[in-house]
């Protein structure tokens, strides 16, 4: 008989396999290559105690985030006796690669810290979601931006506001505003992670291409309304960086467009996750690995047709 840990490992492996098979061989290889270079770049970077600790801290922050957004609370309640084992196996698997990297680079203290956090997080009680209220929230967002309405509620508008104010207030610091813009871009791209109901696709448009173009257009325009003022204020403080600012804006926008196109390329109504979420992560991280910078642009071009094709049955039918 399987132990619980072995059982969870098996489930997670099957999930990874399923996601990769949905992506296809070529894109799985692309992801494997990206992962390889990312690991290689990390190994080169985490040589000092300070960098090891920062790396460990970033991963440590990820674990509570996942812990509090778990959707398997009911299941955990049923398997109450083994909750710790269940959670720890999950978090250990998640931390396995960074732990290996840290140990390889001799960062045993940082690895120990990460492991301690992984254990500690398991003891934090996960309560079931309380009834949320919608009063007043996201009323300021136009009704056609339904993903943003949903996303702002999910992401907590106070956090968004704090980021925004910080980006303005600390514009005089080099690159700080750009980094915050990157975070805001990530949050906004996150709005496009769930699929809309099938009927919703055909409300205002009769062709998939029109629908896709419309979605890209309204997303880009509203994104620029938010990001452009930040970039402009940053430009006032750092006029010599105009090329960097312009390039960053272009790349951020391309990540947003890519996220949208990838979502519809893998449109699967009723599902909560899909390969597009892997692309979303790749798109967001691409800015930090030099050779990956053009990836969102290239993948947008290759996935645009795929998205139109994927949406076609929902507009014209497959018959």
């Amino acid at each position, binding site marked *: 008989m399987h132990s619980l840990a072995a059982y969870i490992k098996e489930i997670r492996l099957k999930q990874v396999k399923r996601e990769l098979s949905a992506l296809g061989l070529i894109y799985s290889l692309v992801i494997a290559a990206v992962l390889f270079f990312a690991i290689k770049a990390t190994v080169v970077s985490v040589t000092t105690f300070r960098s090891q600790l920062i790396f460990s801290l970033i991963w440590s922050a990820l674990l509570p985030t996942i812990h509090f957004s778990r959707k398997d609370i009911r299941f955990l309640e049923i398997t109450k006796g083994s909750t710790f084992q269940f959670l720890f196996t999950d978090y250990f698997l998640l931390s396995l690669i960074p732990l290996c990297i840290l140990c390889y680079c001799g960062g045993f203290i940082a690895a120990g810290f990460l492991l301690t956090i992984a254990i500690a997080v398991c003891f934090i009680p996960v309560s079931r979601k309380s009834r*949320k209220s*919608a009063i007043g929230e996201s009323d300021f967002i136009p009704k056609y931006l339904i993903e943003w*309405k949903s996303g702002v509620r999910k992401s907590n508008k106070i956090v968004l506001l704090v980021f925004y104010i910080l980006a303005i207030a600390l514009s005089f610091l080099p690159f700080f505003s750009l980094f915050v813009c990157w975070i805001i871009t990530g949050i906004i791209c996150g709005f496009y992670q*769930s699929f809309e109901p099938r*009927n919703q696709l*055909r409300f205002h448009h009769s062709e998939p291409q029109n629908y896709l173009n419309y979605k890209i257009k309204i997303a880009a325009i509203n994104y620029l309304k938010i990001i452009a003022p930040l970039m402009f204020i940053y430009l006032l403080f750092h006029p010599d960086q105009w090329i960097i600012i312009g390039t960053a804006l272009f790349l951020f926008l391309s990540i947003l467009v890519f996220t949208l196109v990838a979502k519809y390329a893998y449109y699967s109504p009723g599902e909560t996750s899909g390969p597009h979420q892997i692309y979303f992560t790749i798109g967001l991280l691409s800015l930090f690995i030099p050779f990956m910078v053009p990836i969102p642009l290239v993948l947008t071009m290759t996935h645009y047709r795929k998205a139109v094709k994927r949406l076609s049955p929902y507009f*014209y039918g497959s018959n």
Partner: protein
Amino acid sequence: MVQIENLSFAYNKVPVLKDISLSIAKGAVLGLAGLNGAGKTTLLEIIAGYLKPITGSANVDQIKCSYLETQPFFYSNITGKEYLSFITRKDHSFSIEKWNDVFHLPLHELIENYSSGMKKKLAIMGIIALERELILLDEPFNALDLESVEIVKLILPILKKQGKTIIITSHILSTLTDTCDSICYLENGSIKGIYSKQQFPGLAEELLSDTSNRFQTKIDDAFSNS
């Protein structure tokens, strides 16, 4: 309105629909009945154009069609009102307030706080708001309370009068006889027969007594071992 000819479909080479031929006139209300796995939802999804038949054809103008899923899903963090406002076109006559007088939903609350019955009612309101010519309803009565079942039963004839073509699947046989002009019974992916609402109660009774006879011994056996 809907013309299906020699249609077959399989999931991973397992046949689900076999040689289905069906014709549904404009303004007709057709019920689809059958056991779980008989192919009702698959047939609806092919009519809606979401699935491609392996052989045969379904001649339907999909752009004029709306589809109510068995378990409707929505963006989780939006309110019922936001959902309906999004899907209501300015040139349509649908009034959210008037229709909510009928269904009594807490439209200012987030949909994720809704019960499954409330979600179903919201989805039905969405289908009405869409104002499409062909309406496909997959288990519309599931999860609905008695009052809402009666409301839907009152709405369907009005939609029919407006010239809409409606296809309904349901396990509650009485709801089909109450609302449909004819009922198509699917068995193992094939059409067993198309019955008028007068003929169908007889068939339903026959099916029920057959089920009782076949399963009574098996159930007794299972209990004796447990």
